[in-house]
């Protein structure tokens, strides 16, 4: 029964690799986007702060699948460009994850005590210097657990890319299943793989947090 796995192992591993690099690029892009949007909201940057808020609210109110349908079908139709399933998925995931991470960053920035901000200003640091040296370093450490929650959530959500035709882990398993029809084995194996990878990723988060947490 397990031979459907062994026979198709290279294909499944290629799918897993796609899941992994799709996740890594999204983590990089989504974290950057989230940091920028979160800071724009936190400092209430004129116009851009409001724009960030609207974007964040729109994405957070929309299902991931619909976001992917928008980046794969609707945006290219609207703006007249061609895209691939992988690139559309990557763009969708970055926008989606970035919106959630932005709120985590904002909450982290807001959790820094106002007294510390005053202390920084009182020594003659500018507002941006206070943000950079006093607020942001603490906020970054505070948000590590929420960031990794988002990363784990994203890793699971990459499976949704299979719906628009990306052959990541889930997509690969579904393709093999369509030919060989061994849904129990294939889906079981895929489920266990996600379980292991997600668990490992959340462990990394815990270790990082234990290492960098600011004691107060």
């Amino acid at each position, binding site marked *: 029964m397990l031979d459907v796995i062994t026979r198709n192992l290279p294909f499944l591993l290629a799918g897993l690799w796609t899941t992994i690099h799709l996740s890594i690029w999204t983590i990089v892009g989504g974290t950057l986007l989230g940091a920028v949007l979160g800071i724009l909201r936190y400092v209430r940057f004129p116009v851009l702060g409001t724009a960030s808020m609207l974007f964040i609210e729109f994405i957070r109110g929309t299902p991931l699948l619909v976001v992917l349908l928008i980046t794969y079908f609707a945006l290219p139709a609207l703006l007249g460009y061609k895209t691939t399933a992988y690139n559309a998925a990557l763009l969708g995931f970055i926008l989606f994850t970035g919106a959630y991470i932005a709120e985590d960053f904002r909450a982290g920035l807001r959790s820094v*005590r106002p*007294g*510390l901000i*005053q*202390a*920084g*200003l*009182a*020594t*003659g*640091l*500018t507002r941006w*210097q206070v943000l950079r*040296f*006093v607020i942001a*370093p*603490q906020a970054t*450490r505070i948000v590590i657990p929420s960031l990794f929650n988002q990363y784990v959530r994203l890793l699971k959500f990459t499976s949704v890319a299979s719906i628009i035709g990306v052959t990541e882990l889930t997509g690969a398993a579904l393709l093999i299943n369509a030919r060989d029809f061994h849904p129990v084995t294939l889906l079981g194996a895929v489920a266990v793989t996600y379980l292991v990878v997600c668990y490992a990723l959340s462990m990394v988060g815990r270790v990082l947090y234990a290492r960098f947490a*600011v*004691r*107060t």
Partner: protein
Amino acid sequence: MSEAPIVEIRDLHKSYGATPVLRGCTMNVNRGEVVVVCGPSGSGKSTLIKCVNGLERYQSGSIKVEGIEVGAKDTDLPKLRSRIGMVFQHFELYPHMSVLKNLELAQVHVLKRSRAEAAERGRQLLKRVGLEAKADAMPVDLSGGQQQRVAIARALALDPQAILFDEPTSALDPEMIHEVLQVMTELATEGMTMMVVTHEMGFARRVANRVVFMDAGEIVENAGSEEFFSRPRTPRATEFLSKILSH
């Protein structure tokens, strides 16, 4: 010496919405002087001291620090603040940095000193407040009294012209108040200009040149410390003194 005062406050008004906090305060702090600002809680004294370095905005009146108007649009607040140190009630050490890094930050990024220079000066000042052994400790591992001494060293690191103290001992356990007051007394003896919001009347009597008594957003008395304690002129000050000294 007829030098201009370091801090010059003229008819200062401030309110939060409809609630007035400061109602026409006027006072000076001259070079080399120690001025204690006291008064019941809610009298506006913390707000007043935070107006001096622009942490709080005011609606009308004027504050000049070394002749520069704090509230003017074109005032370089960071530069002004770097010349006036401040010590807070809750210490406000940066929790993610070691003690020494706390002292280095503004030296490097505001005064543009080199890291080595800043570290050198930082260690000097830690020695002065008796904490050279704690240079690499994190703030959370220090007692309240030690944290406040570090905060004083952090203010001194910028070689300020004056230091503002906003209730520096009121968050401390009684046994730690002494070590902080000791450092402040030494500073005063060396001629540092200080504006101190505090309830420590013993310190005021021994160290202050002048005492400013505030109530309900107004400066009620502004007198030499000897005179303030022996012959308060207003009933409000008399009542305040009898309450606080009976403790």
